[in-house]
């Protein structure tokens, strides 16, 4: 039996320039993970002093019970797991949500990707990635956490003592602030970036610790649902809470050279005839507010149509319209319903697989 902590970085030993040597992640030392053998997964144990919240204690937290019931979680889902999902602190004696978060993230990414890949198989990869973020990015999950009514535990021990708040209430709240951060006096209108926040800062926007914590809690709740009720119920939960949101895909495209892109696309799809943009109708060049309707054609097939107040505008719009109608296509099954996703029962492959984007 080998006991020991792992911290190995693996690097390639080769004569040639090793610019991109592959980096194997090292273990998080703060958790003091121990294990028997490296692939005895059951033996892994974080040796920070922690314990799980007893179920009897969790039941006494009204905020936790209310959250459980608000989310309509099955009774199999224990309150202690829900409370664990809300805990991000490593050193407060209770188990944190790290594992639940990882599990939830994997479940979410799979079901969100699957949904998008089947529903919008031709979405260009950059848009696909942004769409995934749009459904399960930290901003969205922060919003979902807020909608679920999760509150941040922001009062210090002293505040709790003075307001005679029951100690159980905090088990139903999001715990990510250290006692010191809670005690800091806040100036209204001023936000001091934490070290984590300043790392994510781009221009004037940053990912706040709070948003990260909310996102992590939401993912963990999904992970917890998996551990208690299995995958089918988790899938339903993700569909109800995440995939039911409206995805503004049409607003996510920014074309630089649409005409060139469409020409390349026609090439890729082996269209026999070349792309032509023709004028379909106009109000007359001398009319007070001239309007033109242009169409992008491939032979006799109209690929797209656009209206503009100049010919150039109408042409560009027609091309963009053609591209959008290609990219946003969603396949149907033989009965006219939306195509099934691979995790559905009685799945039959009726959709299509994206062929990949064109390059310019």
């Amino acid at each position, binding site marked *: 039996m080998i006991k020991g902590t792992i911290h190995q970085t693996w690097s390639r030993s080769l004569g040639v320039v090793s610019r991109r040597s592959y980096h194997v992640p090292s273990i998080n030392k703060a958790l003091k993970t121990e294990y028997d053998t490296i692939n005895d997964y059951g033996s892994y144990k974080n040796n920070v002093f922690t314990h799980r919240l007893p179920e009897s204690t969790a039941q006494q937290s009204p905020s936790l019970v209310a959250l459980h019931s608000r989310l309509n979680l099955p009774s199999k889902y224990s309150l202690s797991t829900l409370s664990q999902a809300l805990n991000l602190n490593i050193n407060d004696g209770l188990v944190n949500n790290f594992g639940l978060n990882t599990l939830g993230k994997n479940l979410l990414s799979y079901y969100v990707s699957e949904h998008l890949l089947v529903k919008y198989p031709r979405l*260009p990869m950059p848009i696909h990635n942004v769409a995934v973020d749009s459904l399960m990015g930290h901003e969205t999950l922060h919003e979902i956490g807020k*909608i679920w009514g999760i509150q941040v535990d922001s009062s210090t021990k002293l505040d709790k003592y003075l307001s005679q708040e029951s100690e159980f209430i905090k088990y139903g709240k999001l715990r990510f602030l250290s006692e010191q951060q809670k005690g800091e006096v806040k100036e209204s209108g001023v936000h001091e970036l934490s070290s984590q926040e300043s790392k994510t800062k781009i221009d004037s926007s940053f990912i706040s610790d709070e948003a990260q914590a909310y996102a992590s809690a939401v993912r963990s709740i999904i992970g917890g649902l998996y551990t208690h009720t299995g995958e089918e119920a988790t899938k339903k939960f993700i569909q109800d809470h995440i995939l039911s949101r409206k995805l*503004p895909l049409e607003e996510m495209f920014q074309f630089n050279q649409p005409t060139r892109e469409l020409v390349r696309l026609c090439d890729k799809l082996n269209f026999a005839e070349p792309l032509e943009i023709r004028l379909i109708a106009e109000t007359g060049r001398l009319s007070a507010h001239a309007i033109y309707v242009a169409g992008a054609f491939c032979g006799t097939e109209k690929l797209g149509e656009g209206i503009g107040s100049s010919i150039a505008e109408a042409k560009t719009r027609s091309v963009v319209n053609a591209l959008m109608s290609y990219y946003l296509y969603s396949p149907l099954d033989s009965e006219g319903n939306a195509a099934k996703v691979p995790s559905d029962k009685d799945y039959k492959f009726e959709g299509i697989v994206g062929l990949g984007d064109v390059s310019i």
Partner: protein
Amino acid sequence: MPVKAIAKTSIARNGIGAYIVPCHRISLQYCNWGGSSTGLRELLKTGRLDKLASEKKGIFFDINKKNGHPTASFHYNNDTIKTVEIANLKPSEILAKIDEHSQRSGNDLFKFNHKVLSINDSVRGIWSPLHTPKSHRHKI
């Protein structure tokens, strides 16, 4: 890069798939001495409030004792807190107030002069005069 992406967050549609009650917490404040709290005190004494709380499981009720007129504060998930005066109200009226406000979304009240509010594109699109044959077009 042929096409660039613009990041957007998806739009919440509470009620499709799952529905989450927007009111997540109700704080009731009463005075043990003042006459205006009689109604609320009676609710607490007879256990009718417990019954209400057990019906509305998703809402966290907390009760505070404080001098002054009784109030009910409703915490909504859009970060608003709406405080309602419940001084001198009968128990049944207080219950009605709680019931009413716990079914709201916390947004400002507004009068909508149409029947349906939609964020979807119109199914039929917009009528265009230019899409009829030239001989049939409207002439001024």
